[in-house]
């Protein structure tokens, strides 16, 4: 019996000795590899002291061999020893595992603030962006999109548009001519004629496209730019329809609160003629913006007019896009001149129509606060990538 007890005692002592270094693990400051080595070491230790060939296993086998009256005590002693050994082993193991897990997490910690991985996305030209938006609006209003030649005969660029030879608009130095005597179209109104010839009437079209004028490039002039021309000819079309249509599309583009204004004007191809303005999309017609608003003038005011009138005393800065007038002058319009209708074989006694036109560069410059219109055709990526 004492042999057996001695055996247990010896096993406990041997374990205690071998386990010594694991008692106080002191993992602080140790690396992952070190901890993993210790865990392996601990595993080996476990096999040695609790495995099949261990002194503890030997002691378990002895239980059956000790005298029956001592068996219970001995059994309890073996169990106690086994519990002590496994407890200590498991505690160390758990501690190591915990350390290793958190060390691994640390080692694999990522910087989630680094930008995500994606190819650079390109950008449409601001003119394309604006043109597509406007085309979408007009298609939804039942208009067909048209375009045609950029180099035209004088007939389409002038005569058919009621600008006969000798007319000041024609003799002005605005028009580019080719050596072959053709004109670079100086307005998209040429498409009115081409489209009416092709489609007949009734007709509803808009025609976006390039036009050319002999202006030396500077901050507000370029020799090539884009216009959008609108034309609606039918029986019973009046200027009220012109106003309604222009107001409608401007509201769709700039918001329901947009108001339009028509002023008498003169164009050879319309009679009566009007220029149209709309309330500024930044100041909503007040001409004034608060300092914060002018800092973020490209953003639309959320509750617009109300705020502006209620606190008008705080609205100190001159609004930029409309230069403080509250209005943005956009384009020309009017009722199609009977001579233009006749040139297209349309009887002005039966049909009437309206037409309007405006420049996209000027509009884009106002919407995006572009200071120099020449940027539009320089294709500087620093410029292009600001628009989406």
């Amino acid at each position, binding site marked *: 019996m004492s042999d057996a007890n001695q055996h247990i005692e010896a096993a406990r002592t041997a374990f205690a000795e071998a386990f010594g270094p694991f008692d106080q693990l002191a993992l602080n400051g140790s690396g992952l590899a070190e901890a993993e080595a210790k865990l392996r070491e601990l595993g080996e230790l476990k096999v040695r002291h609790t495995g099949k060939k261990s002194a503890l296993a030997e002691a378990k086998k002895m239980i059956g061999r000790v005298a029956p009256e001592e068996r219970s005590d001995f059994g309890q002693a073996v169990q106690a020893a086994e519990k002590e050994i496994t407890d200590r082993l498991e505690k160390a193991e758990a501690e190591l595992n915990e350390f290793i897990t958190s060390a691994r997490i640390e080692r694999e910690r990522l910087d989630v603030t680094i930008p*995500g991985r*994606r190819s*650079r996305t*390109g*950008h*449409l*030209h601001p003119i394309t962006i604006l043109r*597509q938006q406007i*085309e979408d609006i007009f298609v939804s*209003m*039942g208009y067909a999109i*048209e375009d045609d*030649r*950029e*180099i*035209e*005969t004088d007939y389409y660029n002038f005569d058919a548009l009621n600008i006969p030879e000798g007319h*000041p*608009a024609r*003799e002005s130095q605005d028009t*580019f*001519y*080719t*050596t*072959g005597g*053709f004109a670079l179209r100086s307005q998209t109104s040429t498409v009115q004629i081409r489209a009416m010839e092709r489609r007949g009437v*009734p007709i509803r079209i808009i025609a976006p496209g*390039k036009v*050319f004028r002999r202006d030396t*490039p500077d901050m507000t002039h370029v*020799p*090539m730019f884009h216009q959008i021309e609108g034309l609606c000819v*039918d029986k019973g*079309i*009046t*200027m*009220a*329809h012109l*106003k309604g*249509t222009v*107001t*409608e599309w401007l509201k769709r583009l700039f918001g329901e609160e947009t108001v*339009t*204004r*028509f*002023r*008498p004007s*003169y164009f050879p191809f319309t*009679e*009566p*003629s009007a220029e149209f303005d709309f309330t500024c999309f930044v100041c909503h017609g007040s001409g004034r913006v608060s300092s914060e608003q002018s800092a973020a003038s490209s953003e639309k005011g959320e509750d617009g007019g109300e705020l502006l009138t209620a606190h008008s005393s705080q609205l100190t800065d001159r609004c930029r896009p409309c230069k403080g007038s509250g209005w943005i002058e956009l384009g020309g319009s009017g*009722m199609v001149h009977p001579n233009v209708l006749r040139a297209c074989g349309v009887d002005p006694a039966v049909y*009437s129509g309206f037409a309007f036109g405006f420049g996209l560069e000027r509009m884009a410059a106002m919407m995006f606060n572009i200071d120099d219109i020449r940027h539009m*055709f320089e*294709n*500087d*990526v*620093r410029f*292009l*990538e600001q628009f989406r």
Partner: protein
Amino acid sequence: MNISYNWLKELIDIELSPEETAAALTRVGLAVEGIHPHKNDLVLDIDLTSNRSDCLSHLGVARELGVITGRSLKATSGSTAAGDELDAVPFPSVLAPEVVRVDAPELCNRFTARVIRGVKIGPSPEWLVDRLEALGERSINNVADITNYVMLELGQPMHAFDLDKLAEKRIVVRTARAGEKITTLDEAERELDETMLAICDAERPVAVAGVMGGFESGITEATTNVLLEVAYFKRENIRQTSRKLGLATEASYRFERGVDIENLIRASDRATELIVQLAGGEAADIVDVYPQRQPERTVRSANVASAVKRLTGLDVAADECERILSSLGIARISDGEYSSPTWRHDIAIEEDLVEEVARHAGYENIKDELPPAFGAGEYQTSEVRKRRLRGALVEQGFDEAIAYSFIDVRHDDLFAAVPEFLREGGEDKFVTLKDSVIEGSVRMRPTLIPGLLGALRLNLNHQRRDVKLFEIGKAFAASGMGELPTERELFTIAVTGGEVHEDRAMPARQLDLYDAKGAVEAALEAAGAVNCDYRPAEISHLRAGQSGEVVKDGRVVGTFGRLNEEIAANYKFKQPVYVAELDLQTILAEPSRPAVYTLLSRFPAVVRDISFLVPRSLTFAEVQSSAIGADATNLRAVSFVDIFEGKGLADDVRSLTIRLEFRSDERTLTDAEVDEEYSAVLAKLKNELSLEPRT
């Protein structure tokens, strides 16, 4: 046009403040752009449209205010120009031939002259100086100032000669002789030609008619006898002369837009009155040469109010229409017929009457109405495909460029145009502008490439090394004589530098030919243009051996490749640049093909990769097409895996790896079946192309 508020009030009784006046004028189409103080006066800056030459005077603006306020105009002070006296003037004056002879009545429709003897030239009184200065005019001397003053008041330009400097003290109005010279008031010598109308004395021109007087015959302090010219010239002729001489004056500005031919006597009387008053002297009778009185211009309108309603939707009562028109001087002659005032050159048809009524009734009273529904809207046929194409390129990191359509002649013949576009021949195959506003840029671009290369250069100058640009736009080629040029929509890309990731500073790798080609493939696919072939080709602006052409349905529709060294050197590109240009118009003329569904196989495919050493002259396409032609019914695809060159390989070969995919729709293929077909492919490649698999 600057208009003095005080002066207006001398012409019409108005109770409107200057601001109200400005608003009222703007409302009827005389846009007041600003109000500027001058001493005790306010000056309205009015932006007039080119049809309203009648408002280039205080009288004209006052007339508009008359319509607005319903008040009538006051007579100009002490004016002798009562309407009746007009016809009392000898017509033509019996004295006329001695003083004035008009040899070119078709260009000078009416000419009046009046001699005022014994004037004393001197400074103008303060009120006159002030008036002129308020309107931005410089005071010269009393007589010159009066002619300016009356022009600003009544809109009629006039000129005062020193009678004693005129040879034989007479005037001959004739066209100039070619090469005839005159020194004008601005002391510049000008050469005239036979299209120009000259006011001459017995010997030589003393004024360019309607434009500027002559220096030598002008009023000086020594002048005592004045000849005052008040005339009407043919508008187009004055415009032409002014353009040709590069000389635009207040006078020419008014004459070319049109003055009031029936207002000459009144203007002359008014000036005469002021001269006598301020400079003394005695006025003789007026000489009026008016060989052919202009016929009265009339406008037909059966019912103006209904025309207004028809065109504007405005309800304006018939008597209000009549009031507006008659206040404007548009008198009803008979039922359905109105006279057009001699000062209004822009009133000719019923629609013009509608505008007059509508602008005074107020455009703001026109309702906002949408036309009745009509039909569905539609995009241009190619627009949807172009939007997809643009989208695909934007996704690939391309920025959209728009460059000028005119380019420098130095790009001529450096670039190959898209096929079947430019004709053979020299410069005449291009469309050329007579002149340009950008030096050298007189060529309408036959290709979009130079525009994009210019943009690359600009971006490189701004330290943007990694750039991908595309443009969709028209190119131009000459057609036969007298025919409109051909316009063709092209799609062009230019790429250089490295592959950029969003928000990452360093490019991942350098772009190469296959990036450019990939972009073209993606764009065409997005636009629904499938089944394009790419084959090697020598293209003048591309580097030999790194260039190809795009073929669609047997037709070459574009080119792609690396920019050649010479052009790259012109632009000082130190890194490779790749460009592609495609005839988008031709490509999109073909409808896009709808997708066709093929059955999904239930049986697995067997894949075999195989590498060959291929000579550089042999293309993957040739290898692929040879393999596909092999006697192997279950061979479903031959695809590209990898190409390797350089290290360990001879210079003239590459290692090409391709993938063969075998599959049956009926059963799972056995190894033996695959082996058999695989061998057939190998045999074909060996026989046809002498290719041996690498081990």
